[in-house]
């Protein structure tokens, strides 16, 4: 099954009113791809809308439509995301300002934005009111190349899963193809909780702290223990533009829909491509 190209409507509903933000805004991304990420939680009852992350490629036109309520004039700005500042933002709400370019002022409470291209990285798209207060912010990911996945429609628990990963370009360069497979139910149980030093990754009764500024191997080792046992991770190094990455599923895996996330990373070049697909895991034969 080739991954279906989905025209994504990524909705960012403001849910950070307690953090000092006003109004409400909805941001629509017309993009070819998105990835589902665990929910980020901060404060007592506050969640950050990270469920769906739009993914563009460098040479892709970025179309964004937004609407705001409770305000007559808004502006939109796009900034490269600085993780440490984002964490402070999450902690302190609107008191922290991002290092951003000049906002595009719009006279209406709704509008469209077209960008020819952005270099790869993580960006934050923010809607601001006429007092330059952030109404809503949504992360957005830009990768270098388009990635295509070849995934079977289903796999029996305990069997191998062969994921074909195809990259547009960047041949003859050392790359690492990585694929992760997690069930949707596990995704829903997983939480990312920002802290002073990084993210706390929480899954059911397990958790581990992942430092974002200086991530360390021991910290990542701890994180591996947190990941659900039903899941699987595979990787392969290759200079080619394609790779078959084998995943091992557990015979004890719960049947149901699993999310397959593929990422290609090139040392010195960063994240090259990112793509998500889905697969049904069938129960193992008795």
């Amino acid at each position, binding site marked *: 099954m080739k991954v279906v190209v989905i025209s994504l409507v990524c909705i960012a509903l403001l849910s950070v009113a307690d953090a000092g933000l006003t109004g409400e805004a909805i941001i629509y991304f017309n993009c070819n791809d998105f990835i589902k990420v665990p929910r980020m939680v901060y404060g007592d009852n506050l969640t950050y809308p990270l469920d769906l992350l739009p993914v563009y490629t460098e040479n892709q036109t970025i179309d964004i439509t937004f609407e705001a309520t409770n305000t007559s004039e808004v502006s939109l700005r796009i900034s*490269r*995301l*600085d*993780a*440490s500042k984002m964490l402070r933002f999450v902690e302190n709400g609107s008191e922290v300002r991002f290092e951003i370019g000049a906002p595009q002022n719009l006279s209406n409470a709704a509008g469209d934005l077209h960008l020819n291209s952005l270099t*790869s*990285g*993580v960006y934050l798209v923010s809607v601001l009111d006429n007092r330059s207060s952030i109404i809503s912010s949504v992360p957005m990911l830009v990768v270098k190349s388009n990635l295509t996945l070849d995934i079977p429609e289903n796999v029996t628990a305990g069997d*191998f899963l062969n994921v074909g990963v195809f990259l547009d370009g960047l041949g003859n360069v050392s790359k*690492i193809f*990585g694929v992760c497979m997690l069930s949707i139910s596990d995704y829903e149980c997983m939480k990312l909780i920002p802290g002073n030093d990084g993210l706390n990754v929480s899954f059911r009764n397990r958790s581990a702290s992942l430092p*974002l*500024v200086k*991530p360390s*191997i021991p910290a*990542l*080792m701890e*994180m*591996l*223990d*947190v*990941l*659900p*046992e039903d*899941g*699987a*991770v*595979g*990787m*392969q*190094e*290759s200079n080619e533009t394609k*790779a*078959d*990455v*084998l*995943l*091992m*599923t*557990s015979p004890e895996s719960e049947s149901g829909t699993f999310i397959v996330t593929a*990422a290609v*990373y090139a*040392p010195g070049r*960063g*994240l090259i491509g990112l793509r998500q697909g889905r697969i049904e895991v069938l129960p193992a034969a008795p």
Partner: protein
Amino acid sequence: MRSVLLIVAVLLLIQICAGFEVSSQSVRPGEDITLSGTASPGERVQFRSSFSMVLPVVNGMYSYESTVEIPQKPNRFSVSVKNVQDLNLGVRMGIWLTRRIEATGGSVSLSHRDVPPGRYTLKIFGNALPGASHVKVDVTAETEVRADQNGGYRLAIDTSGVPEGEYRIESAGDVKVVRITSASGSRGDSVTSEVSETESVETVSEVRITPEVVRWYANMSGLRMENTTQYQEVEAQLRQRLKGGYWKIIRRGEPLTEQAGDCEDEYCLVRGVGACTSCREKELAILRARSGDGVKKSESVESAAGGINSSIESPEADRGIVRRFIDWLLGLLRMVLG
């Protein structure tokens, strides 16, 4: 003065050449082997252990799974696989981590040092070269122990995952060979080491245990053999049945020992020289029961588990699957976080 120096030198040589002792020349799979000896106080004594195994090729693929015990650091593990197109290494650390390496010239050699200690489930699998019936795997593990203030040292080696056969241990030029074998005499291992395969040939004498024979036995016994795991279970059952000489396999046309005429099938399972009538009747009853509808897995393998004390990695980067995975994650994080 010269004589004193000579005596010191001789004493040093004696100490260096003192070698080491092993707790037993023969242990059951999974049991510990204790190495002990004497060295200089505080000296680090290095040990290198190794074994080989031959994995059957089923539907073009080979596979081996076991629980492994990784000892304390420093350690180094190496795996060499021949007759393959690729090698996939899976380590279960809660979640399954898998890494695939393509072979060069039909071989893959990997080495990894300072594997985080702990107990893991490890799986080796991949595609064999076209036409290959077996894949040879060589495993080497290195670790060290520090002598105490009196110069004594002891090191326990967990043999989980080591298949039955010869387990070779080296230190400072001294070599000991420990035999890994089931005390009951049954062959429950799913993997055939080079030595044990030779033995099985001697035991069976007429017919070697090849994938073709295992397939025949599965059909005859009504056993499922649709994947590598099932193949290994069937092979283990067959080896267990043949162990001790109660039963043997003969080829088509060879005279039956207990039935009239010659063997008319591709192979026939007949009573061997060492069988007694009551044992044979009992075995026949079991065989008839198995060839019916039910096959109990618990009958199959007494010690299919076993671990290779290893974790593995690419020599060029000198990092293991876990480490490489984490490096990959770190790279992503650095890129994402700037």
